[in-house]
């Protein structure tokens, strides 16, 4: 592999300096963190750079970390360099009370549905998205089901004995 993780890290640091942080390598894949408002700049740089050439957006999703105050929602970008077959991923963090993130639709058209999905499940507000509405869940849903403050179970059911399902209830 011609493009090593060290090289990617070096190029990023040359360009953005201290702004990129949290470098880690899991199972050989580099991941790092950038500030919320720098997501597009980073994507653009990774796309344009003649050496890095991360021109394929594999996936875009979110994670909810309820214990991290002020940075509860992480949006994760998975990128692929098809020439060198190298993958990276980077995260931005945002406040759950005001989850505004710039949309990547202008850069990658495929981000359109992925961002809608992320909005659908986590309520991340992609600023500038052309059509930000629910994509998988029913339109009438009034919450974001994958945020951890909401239970996974269907709440309209009354016939299930919670104790039988290992939640609530007591042993005696």
């Amino acid at each position, binding site marked *: 592999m011609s493009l090593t993780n060290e090289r990617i890290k070096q190029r990023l640091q040359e360009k953005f300096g201290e702004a990129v942080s949290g470098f880690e390598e899991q199972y050989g894949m580099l991941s790092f963190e950038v500030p919320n408002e720098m997501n597009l700049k980073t994507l653009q740089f990774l796309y344009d750079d003649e050496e890095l050439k991360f021109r394929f957006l594999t996936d875009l999703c979110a994670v909810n970390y309820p214990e991290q105050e002020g940075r509860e929602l992480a949006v994760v970008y998975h990128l692929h360099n098809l020439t060198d077959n190298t993958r990276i991923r980077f995260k931005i963090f945002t406040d759950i009370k005001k989850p505004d993130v710039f949309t990547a639709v202008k850069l990658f058209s495929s981000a359109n549905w992925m961002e809608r999905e992320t909005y659908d499940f986590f309520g991340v507000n992609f600023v500038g998205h052309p059509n930000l509405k629910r994509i*998988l*869940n*029913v339109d009438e*849903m009034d919450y974001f*089901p994958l945020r951890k403050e*909401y239970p*996974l*179970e*269907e*709440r*309209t*059911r009354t*016939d*299930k004995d919670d104790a039988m*399902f290992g939640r609530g209830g007591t042993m005696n």
Partner: protein
Amino acid sequence: MSRPVRFNIYQKEADAKTAVSMTEAPEGYTGDGFFTTKLSDVVGLARKNSIWPLPFATSCCGIEFMATMGSHYDLARFGSERVGFSPRQCDLLMVMGTIAKKMAPVLRQVYLQMAEPRWVLSMGACASSGGIFDTYSVLQGIDQIIPVDIYIPGCPPRPEAVLDGFMRIQELVGQESIRRRNSEQYKGLLESYGIQ
């Protein structure tokens, strides 16, 4: 050498008398060249032996239904050779599989398009109660949106269970009074689902 496989080891000679199965004639009064009985019974007899099912198969239970339709179990033996895919022609809605909440309006629409008299069979834990999918995206039982006549338990139910459920539907169909669909009780049932 390959293992000799032989089915039907107790072979029977073909006999036209036993090969053709006939239904019992309904109770009635027989005389010389005539037979009187209740209209309900005759209509029920005809209906129950010519049910046209509409399979609404959304997941794994649908696979089990395919086995039921196949030659080994052969639902056609019960007068249901014709599986219809237009709700307007069918009598029995067979709901098999997980119904997501997004699918619920579609299922309801299919039910509404069926002509009376119509029956509904809910196959498997998912269709009957949500099954293992106790989650925000799955409808917890189709009886929340449409009335159901027979539930088949299991995950998935074996074809034998499906046949059993089907025969129970036949029983219901055969015994149903032809006036039932006009009764106040039935109208009340539909009203409770907000239909009509």
